[in-house]
């Protein structure tokens, strides 16, 4: 287990402040830390008031897309007489990201509390927590907390003695990255293959079981109780206007101190990599960083001064994504790294869209031959062409997810690719 981390950089542990404390896993321990007070408060508020606070806080979805959470909640219909559902996306599967796992295994009651408050805000009668199947040990911790919540009037009928009821169900995935896409998740929950569907219909119109549904990430929901307790202004003391609050950072790759950290949004990326994580174990310069999980664009070692906000990383030509920098030192074989990333997306493509199904596997085959030294002179152009054909033409963004790192690696590390090309035969004069 990984807490606490030694770090020279000031961390702002709010959401993660009880991670690493085994007692926080039990209801008794959680209550001793002020747990479920935000839920109690939410019961005295109207759903619209809860949504308003979250909207004012500027909290953005932590699953990668960064959509404003309060706004998403406000899309849910009111008084439509239909059952509403909340889906908590705990299918953490973006290579590089491992932050939700820590929330689940250390502070399961925080997640349950967040789910309940969100359910109240959107009028949901049932919250489904979709946890990736591989997280069995983490799910055991969460299961115990859910049963405890039921046994103590915190889930099910008449929560905390009120007239409000909401069920919570743990639903395990079974190995499919695409189940982390919101419509894929809902399809999987319904007993289908986790194939995304084209929107509309949007989840708030017709989501799980054809009913209005909101899908929120674990970290997003875990941020809700503290926002409700302390208010929107409190949350806005950190970060920028467009990216308020604190954020969990999953740092991996060539680092002296890899692991999870929580920082106020907006620090320079280089501070996180060098001060918090101690730079590279080899002591060699950083060659590349993929800042937001494997589906975001490469930055070079010279581009790390950017601010770690949604807008800051977008300006730098990449994305905050899941805030999961994967760091590569000078000796890294970029072609091999890119091939490995592409292999993942080819494996996880659900196969509905030709551009993705065929495109991802062609990318892998071309990268494999370049890596093996059998590349052909036209291969780089072909890869660029594939990037163009795979962008914005599919039901979901899985195909785009391989384009971001691929295209940026071609732009920024072209020499690495060219160095692996088969020497061209020159006709003897």
């Amino acid at each position, binding site marked *: 287990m*990984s807490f606490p981390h030694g770090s020279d950089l000031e961390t702002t542990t709010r959401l993660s402040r009880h991670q690493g404390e085994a007692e926080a896993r039990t209801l008794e321990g959680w209550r001793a830390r002020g747990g479920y007070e935000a839920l109690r408060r939410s019961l005295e508020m109207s759903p619209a008031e809860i949504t308003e606070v979250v909207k004012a806080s500027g909290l953005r979805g932590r699953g990668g897309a960064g959509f404003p959470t309060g706004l998403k909640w406000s899309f849910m219909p009111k008084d439509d007489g239909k*059952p509403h559902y909340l889906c908590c996306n705990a299918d*953490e*599967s973006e*290579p*590089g990201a*491992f932050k*939700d*796992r820590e929330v689940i295994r250390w502070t399961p009651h925080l997640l349950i509390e967040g789910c309940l408050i969100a359910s109240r805000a959107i009028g949901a009668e049932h919250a489904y927590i979709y*946890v*990736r*199947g*591989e*997280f*069995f*040990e983490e*799910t*055991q911790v*969460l*299961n115990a907390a*859910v*049963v405890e919540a*039921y046994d103590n009037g915190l889930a099910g009928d008449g929560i905390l003695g009120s007239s409000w009821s909401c*069920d*919570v169900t*743990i*639903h*395990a*995935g*079974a*190995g*499919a*990255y695409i189940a982390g896409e919101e419509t894929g998740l809902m399809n999987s*929950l*319904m*007993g*289908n*293959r*986790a194939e995304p569907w084209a929107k509309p219909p949007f989840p708030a119109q017709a989501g799980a*079981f054809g009913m209005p549904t909101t899908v929120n990430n674990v970290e997003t929901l875990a941020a809700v109780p503290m926002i409700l307790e302390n208010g929107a202004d409190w949350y806005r003391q950190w970060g920028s206007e467009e990216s308020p609050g604190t954020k969990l950072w*999953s*740092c*991996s*790759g*060539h680092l002296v101190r*890899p*692991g999870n950290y929580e920082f106020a949004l907006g620090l320079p990326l280089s501070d996180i990599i060098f001060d918090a994580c101690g730079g590279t174990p080899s002591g060699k310069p950083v060659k590349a960083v993929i800042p937001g999980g*494997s589906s975001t664009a490469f930055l070079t070692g010279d581009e790390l001064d950017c601010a770690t906000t949604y807008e800051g990383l977008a300006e730098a030509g990449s994305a905050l994504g899941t805030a*999961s920098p*994967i760091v*590569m030192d000078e000796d*890294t074989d970029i072609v*091999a*790294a890119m091939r*490995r*990333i592409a292999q*993942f997306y080819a*494996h*996880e493509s*659900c196969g509905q869209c030709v551009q993705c199904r065929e495109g991802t596997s062609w990318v892998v085959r071309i990268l494999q031959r370049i890596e093996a030294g059998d590349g052909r002179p036209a291969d780089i152009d072909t890869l660029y062409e594939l990037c163009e054909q795979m962008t914005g033409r599919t039901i979901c963004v899985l195909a785009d997810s391989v384009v971001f790192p691929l295209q940026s690696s071609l732009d920024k590390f072209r020499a690495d690719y060219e160095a692996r090309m088969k020497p061209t035969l020159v006709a003897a004069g």
Partner: protein
Amino acid sequence: MSRRIHPAVVGAQPFQLTARERFDGPIFETEEGKHRLEAALSRYPTKQAALLPMLGFVQSVKGWIEPADMVEVAEALDLTPAYVHSIATFYTMYNKHPVGRHFVQVCTNISCHLNRAEEVLHRFLAETGTREGEISDDGEFTVIEAECLGACGFATVVQVNDRYLEDVTPDRVPGIVENLRGGRDP
């Protein structure tokens, strides 16, 4: 076959046969099978939504899902066997073939790749004397390459049955294999 479970958590079970003996025979005729099915059906507005939980349950008591099990699940949920097959084959964690007593999955995705994951994988194959995906002659091991296990800061990550081993280096592999073989903590 008489373990009871809270309906709220019926959708989550071990994916490998770790803590129990393999059960043979019709699952939904047992007391535990009936209880699980009933519990799952109580949590969703449709019968079909109980499919993943029930496939998971079958695997947790049988270790893998064979065609006859898919037929049984299909009958219990009013689905066609072909549909259940299409689901079981979509999700990678359902074992469509038996696996060794210790199912070793080595993540080789990007963060692990940067931390010698391929060497860890090859070391596991060498120490267990297997090729990827096959069961060792003594029935103890199956080793496969896995996609991201979601613990990238602890590379290389290896999942043995339902348990994660973190920060695995090639040098640690012989000891892990020896301990597993001897029935000890890896």
